[in-house]
């Protein structure tokens, strides 16, 4: 591999990671957009999503990387796993909102965020209690089909991953821009009180937002497993913080911003790992988080600075 091939390969890897971070970042950004809350529980909704997908595939007899499927069965299994994982994660998100966050709606200050830290801890440790601390081999029915592009390799799973992310993001975009509920979400994000006056059921909007954001996190959890071939109870924190950085980088509350931010963070991770040192990538990413918040809190694509005090 010459140096251009290495660059290309790292870009392929970076975009793949970025697609996953984008899906995860969308959940942060949507919830922040609607109720100005930084939701730490989202980290572990993502982690739970990967376990739902794993259990489902194991229940279908797909264990490890030995069961390879092709054609319709593959598509069928993937669609089923994706849909069920997203539903499961979405329901978890709604439960979090309903039980612990709705009673705190309108409480000013940091109390709701502290609650989400607590929720995140609870989910994390409940999963730990049930599955144990060891890393789990992830079921992966994808055939390993590589295409050589120069010296770089593009594999089927990467193409699939990009495709799924793109479809989900376009679906979300369509939902927010074109549907009645999407309009209600936009109105609520602008001014909750005014939206309520105009007959928008704000509680309902918040529930839908949590459902969608968490469902996307579930999809990201599945993608994580398929990409890395493992999952563990600890994956939420690192991936979650990176995705959160992506949301901030793109402009928190801004849906296209989260997608862009995710891709950028993915590229920074893969290229930083290649050209700098892997052990410094997190320092780079968290420095970006700090620097963006300090010098450009509205992010790359945000229009207004966050105003919540």
């Amino acid at each position, binding site marked *: 591999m010459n140096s251009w091939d290495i660059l290309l390969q790292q870009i392929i890897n970076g975009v793949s990671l970025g697609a996953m971070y984008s899906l995860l970042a969308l959940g942060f950004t949507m919830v922040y957009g609607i109720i100005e809350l930084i939701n730490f529980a989202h980290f572990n909704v993502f982690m739970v999503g990967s376990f739902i997908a794993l259990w489902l595939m194991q229940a279908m007899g797909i264990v490890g990387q030995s069961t390879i499927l092709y054609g319709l069965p593959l598509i069928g299994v993937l669609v089923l796993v994706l849909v069920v994982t997203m539903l499961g994660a979405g329901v978890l998100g709604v439960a979090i909102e309903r039980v612990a966050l709705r009673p705190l709606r309108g409480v000013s200050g940091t109390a709701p965020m502290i609650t989400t830290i607590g929720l995140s801890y609870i989910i994390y440790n409940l999963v730990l209690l049930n599955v144990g601390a060891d890393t789990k081999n992830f079921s992966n029915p994808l055939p390993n089909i590589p295409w050589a592009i120069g010296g770089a390799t593009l594999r089927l799973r990467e193409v699939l991953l990009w495709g799924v992310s793109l479809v989900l993001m376009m679906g979300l975009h369509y939902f927010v821009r074109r549907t009645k509920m999407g309009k209600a979400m936009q109105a609520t994000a602008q001014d909750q009180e005014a939206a309520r006056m105009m007959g928008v059921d704000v509680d309902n909007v918040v529930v839908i937002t949590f459902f969608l954001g968490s469902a996307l996190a579930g999809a990201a959890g599945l993608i994580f497993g398929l990409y890395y071939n493992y999952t563990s109870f600890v994956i939420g924190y690192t991936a979650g913080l990176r995705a959160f950085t992506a949301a901030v980088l793109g402009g928190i509350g801004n849906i296209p911003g989260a997608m862009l931010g995710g891709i950028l963070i993915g590229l920074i991770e893969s290229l930083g790992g290649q050209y700098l040192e892997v052990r410094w990538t997190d320092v780079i990413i968290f420095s970006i988080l700090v620097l963006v*918040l300090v010098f450009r809190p509205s992010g790359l694509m945000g229009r207004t600075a966050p105003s919540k005090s």
Partner: protein
Amino acid sequence: MSAPAETRRNGITGIWDRMLSEEWQLKVGLVLFILALAFPLIDGNEGDIDAAANATAFAILALGLNIVVGFAGLLDLGYAAFFAIGAYTYGIFSSYQVQPEWSSFWEPFRWLGLVQQLHSSSGVDHVHFAVSFWLMLPISALVAAFFGVLFGAPTLRLKGDYLAIVTLGFGEIVPIVARNTPYLTNGAQGLNGVTTPSFFGYSFGVQSTPFYYVGLAMIVVLIFVSMRLKDSRVGRAWMAIREDEIAAEAMGVNRTRLKLLAFAIGAGFAGSTGTFYVAKLQTATPEMFMFPVSVMLLVMIVLGGMGSVAGVVVGAVFLQLLQSWFLQDLTQGVHWLGRVTGIGLLERVDLVQSIELIFGIILVLMMLYRRQGLIPARRDVHALTLAQQTAVPSRGGIKGEMKPLHRKAIDPGKPLLQISGLRKAFGGIQAVRGLDLTVMPGSIIAVIGPNGSGKTTFFNLVTGLTQPDAGKVLLAGEDITGLKPDAIVERGVARTFQNLRLFANMSVMENALVGVHSRTTTGALGAVFRPPWVKREEEAARQHVLGVISIFGNRLMPRVQHLARTLSYANRRRLEITRALVTEPVLLLLDEPTAGMNPTETLELTDQIRDLRERGVTILLIEHKLNVVNEIADRVIVLDHGEKIAEGTPAEIQRNKEVLSAYLGRTAATAAAAS
């Protein structure tokens, strides 16, 4: 059906609250302290003493974090980073990790006892850093505080959640840097062979008891410091920032400086604790300073009560006991339950391992059901009885003698406030365009105009809350354009807010004392050591506040200990005026002072405002009640669409055509003029 249950709950909470009255806290605290002193003698188990010694470190950290989170309201999720900085500062300067080659440069340091010369067989001598533990305690505090200021200076203007995230990022970066710089820190393996402290030749070694007492002493120091700070000029300014940053600034608090001070003090204590903890463990690894440590400290504070010193101590002690004591016994019980019931999960569960699950549950439950913590920093004072409310019937104008309200000498012949060409646009909206105004000392000027005419923006521009696009504001000849609000307060301009910005969770007295901030000088050291001049300053400030409160007769006087949020609407207005007056202003800006008052109260306040002028305060007031304006204003200026459309005596304004059409529309104005 739910009513009796509700009452019972209140009953229990009520008993709990009564038990935690001030005297009780003191007694219970003393008993606990004596028990803590005797603990190593009572419990001979080395393991228990060791756990207790470690626990002291986290209690100190919780108290330090409480200054940042509880007092100043700055949620710091990366507090463990300063703990790490202090730990590595000591670890590096008292271990064999870093050994530069010996040269004559090191001779003076050897003479001071800070380094030793290591002879080696290869002929090249090396330096061994051996700085004393007792020296490093304050030094690591200074180093950590330095990093606190360095990191805080750019970030502390972020608010709430955003500050939390930035600090979280910082908290992640520091351990990674420690892991990635092995020549300084020995990376993930951790520093080894950190020197253990010795006290007058008595080496602590691996014993826990001396560390326990050092830790206990540090806790006592920190409790003392916290108590002293809380009830001081500095502590009140912190709480004011926590309650309402904008209002704090408008009352003369320099929020940047005070936030940095809180951050630096918190970081400093964390730094010292780092030194203590590393000296005890004789090792330091990056894993000791990760996010979970910061969360554990947050759980202690949330459980005990944010800003409540007693609460934080109780929270820290309880969680440490839980971790190292209760949970082990409890686990046995749960296993037994699992065996009896045959539930596998219960049989396998290790509650000590599940401590984080318990942390999570505590956080959620406390936030949902008792946000103020087990021992709240604030308890409501009982409402006044009807008899108390009506006890002193003295109301109306200002009675009794008062010292002059301002200390600046004002030349009565020269204009006090000169505004020229003042301009401010928000996007496409010209809120104020080209305003000119001259105010002579000792006058009352009313600013009127329809809603949205730029009155409040005009006030914000004069008081520095909004920066003008163009124009000048001169106060007694001095240019104050674009100064920060606290600097403008210092120069003698004070204001109230249209929609009331009191510090809700502070008492009437404390609210007013924040106003004295710019006229007093006590700093953190003064607050802690409380020398005679600080006591005198505090006493004078309180007397001054009581003097100003007496303007309102018995409206506020019996309520000085009440929290601002328990006051009636009219009393809140009075408290805002009080808070503005104690800043000793030459110019007072009142933004709709009589809004929400009934006719009697309005008349009362009108008299009081007039009396203020007699005492040398010049007043600008925004007012919608035209009878008030006609009653007290010497001159009236009328704003419409950001421009001054008229200025004159109340009588002139009443006849002004333009004013009529601005208020009533052109047709109605013509009709009114005709009739």
